[in-house]
C-alpha cells in the first residue's frame, strides 16, 4: 500500500526512444509466445509513437497523476466488519449513482466503488479537475457528513474533520502508472459550458431558417 511511482523524471536521465524500445524488447524476451508475437506485430507502430511522445503526465499535488487538467485518484482500503454492507446499502439507496450530491462538487467526473476479497477491501477510483487537495478544506466544511458516512466503512478512518484525515487518504492512495484522458484540457465546468453553447447554437440555427 502506498507505493508511489516517480512521475517526474529529470531531462538528463530520460532515455531515448530507441533505448526505451530496446528495454521493452529485453523484458519481452521472457514473455509468453503470445506476448512476444504481439510485440513484434506492433513494434514498428510503437516506435513511431514513442519518438513523438504525448504531453507528459504530471503529479496531481502530493499523490496521484494528472494529465492536462484531469487527475486520477485510486484508493484501496481495508474495511471494518459490516462496513461493506453499510456502504453498499447506502450506494444502492441511490441506485448506485451518487449524482444528486456528487454533482454539487463540480469537479468530479466519475467515481467507482469496487468491493473485493470477500467484502473485506474496497477499491475507490475517481477522476476530477485540478490537484488533489485544492478543495479538500471546502469539502470538509460543506459536506463532512457525506464523506464520513462513506468513509466510516474504512478501517482506521479518523473522521474527515480530524487533522489526520488527509494523511490517511495519502497513505492509502496509489498513483496510477497509466492515465489516459481523451480531452485532458476540458474541465467539467468547460464541458457544461460547451453543452450550453451547443444547445444555444442549435436554437439559433433553427430560428434563422
Amino acid at each position, binding site marked *: 500500500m502506498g507505493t508511489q511511482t516517480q512521475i517526474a523524471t529529470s531531462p538528463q536521465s530520460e532515455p531515448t526512444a530507441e533505448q526505451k524500445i530496446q528495454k521493452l524488447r529485453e523484458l519481452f524476451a521472457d514473455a509468453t509466445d503470445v506476448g512476444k508475437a504481439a510485440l513484434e506485430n506492433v513494434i514498428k507502430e510503437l516506435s513511431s509513437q514513442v519518438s513523438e511522445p504525448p504531453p507528459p503526465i504530471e503529479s496531481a499535488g502530493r499523490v496521484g497523476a494528472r494529465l492536462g487538467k484531469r487527475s486520477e485518484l485510486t484508493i484501496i482500503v481495508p474495511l471494518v466488519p459490516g462496513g461493506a454492507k453499510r456502504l453498499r446499502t447506502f450506494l444502492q439507496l441511490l441506485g448506485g449513482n451518487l449524482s444528486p450530491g456528487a454533482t454539487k462538487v*463540480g469537479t468530479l467526473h466519475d467515481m467507482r466503488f469496487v468491493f473485493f476479497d470477500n467484502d473485506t477491501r474496497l477499491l475507490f477510483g475517481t477522476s476530477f479537475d485540478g490537484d488533489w487537495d*485544492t478543495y479538500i*478544506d471546502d469539502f470538509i*466544511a460543506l459536506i463532512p457528513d457525506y464523506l464520513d458516512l462513506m468513509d466510516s466503512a474504512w478501517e482506521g478512518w479518523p473522521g474527515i*474533520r480530524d487533522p489526520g484525515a488527509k494523511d490517511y487518504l495519502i497513505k492509502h492512495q496509489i498513483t496510477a502508472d497509466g492515465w489516459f484522458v481523451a480531452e485532458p484540457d476540458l*474541465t467539467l*465546468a*468547460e464541458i*457544461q459550458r460547451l453543452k450550453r453553447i451547443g444547445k444555444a447554437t442549435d436554437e439559433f440555427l433553427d430560428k434563422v431558417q
Partner: protein
Amino acid sequence: MEDAPVSSVNESIGASVAVRAATLDLHEIQATVLRPRPAPYFGTHVLLRIDDARDGRELFRRLTPHIDSAAAWWSAKTPWLSVGISFAGLKALGLPEDSLQSFPEAFREGMAARARQLGDTGLNDPKNWDAAYGQGQVHIGVQAFSDSEEERRRILRVAREQLDGLSVSILAMQDFGAQPGDRNSLGYKDGIDQPAIEGSGVNPLPGQGEPIKPGEFILGYPGESGFPLPMPQPEVLGRNGTYVGFRKYQSRVGAFNRFLQAHGSTDEERELLAAKLVGRWRSGAPLVLAPDADNPELGADPHRNNDFDYHNDLRGRQAPFGCHIRRMNPRDTKLTRLTDVKLHRLIRRGTTYGPPYDPNALSEADDEVPRGAIFLFISAKAMATIEFLQQEWINDGNFIGIGDERDPIIGLQQEGATFTIPKDPVRKLVRGIETFNVLRGGEYFFMPSISALKWLANGFQ
C-alpha cells in the same frame, strides 16, 4: 474591554464601528494583523538580514518594546511598528531544529521555491525579482505605518536606532504612502473589502459578511472546521501569531493606459472599462451599486461602499465574473465548484509606492517607473491560501465559469489573453489584456505574538 456594544469612531478609516467584547488576546496579536492602514497613510518596509545569531536575538530584545499590539485596534492610533520573520530568519536566530520543523512545508521552502505552486513563472519568475528577494537573504521584515510623513520618519528612526552596533544588515528600505485621493498605482481606491473576524472586537461593516472564525487568521483559535490549525511549536512561539505573504508588484502603468486607450475612445468609455476590470469605479464605488456612472460619495463611504452582494447580478451584467473583486471575494456568486468562500479570504494590507498614477503615461518607459504596491497577505494559513488563490481565482477562470481567463489586474497573462464583459444582447470580448502588475519580489514571514517575540529575544525560553 466593553461588554455591551458601544459606538466608537475609527478616525483612521473614517468609519464609526460598534465595539463589543473581544475574545481574542488583542494584547498579544501584532497591530498590523487587525488594524487597517490610516487614511492617508505613510510608511516604510525595512528588510533585514541577521549576520550573527546573538545580535539577531538582541535586535528582538530591543525592538519588541516598540512593536504595537492590536489592543483597541479600532481606535485611531498611529504610528505603529510590526515585525515578521522568514524561515531563513528563524534559522539565522538559531531556533532549535524541532521547532523549525514544526513550521508548514511551504513556509520552510519560502515563496521563491514555491514558484511552481504559485504560478510565478515567466515575467513573474523569481529569477526576474529585485535583488533582495528570493535568495534566503531576507530574514526580517519591519513595517512602519503612520498617518503623517513626520510620524513615519520618527518611528522609522526609532526602528533604525535599535540596529546600532549589531551585525544586522539592511537589505532594502521601501517607503510607501497613499497617492492623492487615497488611490493606488493604477488610480483606484483600494483596500476596501476586508474579512470580518469573529471575536476581534467590532461588529462587521455592512457587506463584510458573516464574521469568519478567528483560527483562519490567527493561530491558536478554532477555525471554520472547529479545530485550530496546526501551530509552530512550542506553543508560546505559535499562539497568537500568524503568517504574512509579502508580494511586491510593479504596475505597468503605460501598458495599462495603452490598453484603456485602445478600447475606449472617450474618457467615459475608458473609465467604464477600468471599472469593469476591477468591479469598482476608481472612486471605490462598486459597479453593482453604481452600474452606469461613478458615484464618488458612495465610493468614499465605508458604510455603503462594500454593502452589496451579487444576487441582482447573476449574469455579470454589472460586475463581470472575471473582474478583480468578484474573483477575490465571490460573495454569493454561484461557483462551478463546491466552495466555501470563507476559507479562502485574506487580510490585505496594501501599501502603494512610487509616483502617483498618471493617466497620460503611455510609453513603455512608463512601465519601468518603480511604482506599484507591496501587499501583506495575512492569514493563519497564508501560504496555502495564496497558492489556492493564485491557482484557482487569479490565474484561472474555470471556478467562475469563464474558462482560462485570468484576473485582469494581478493575473499573469498569456499571449492572446481576453476579458469577457457580459452584456445584452451578446457578451463583449476585450482583447489585448497584458500583465499589468508584475511581481518583483516575495517572501513569507511569520508574524509572532508579543510573547513569542520576547521568547525569541530571550534565547527561546
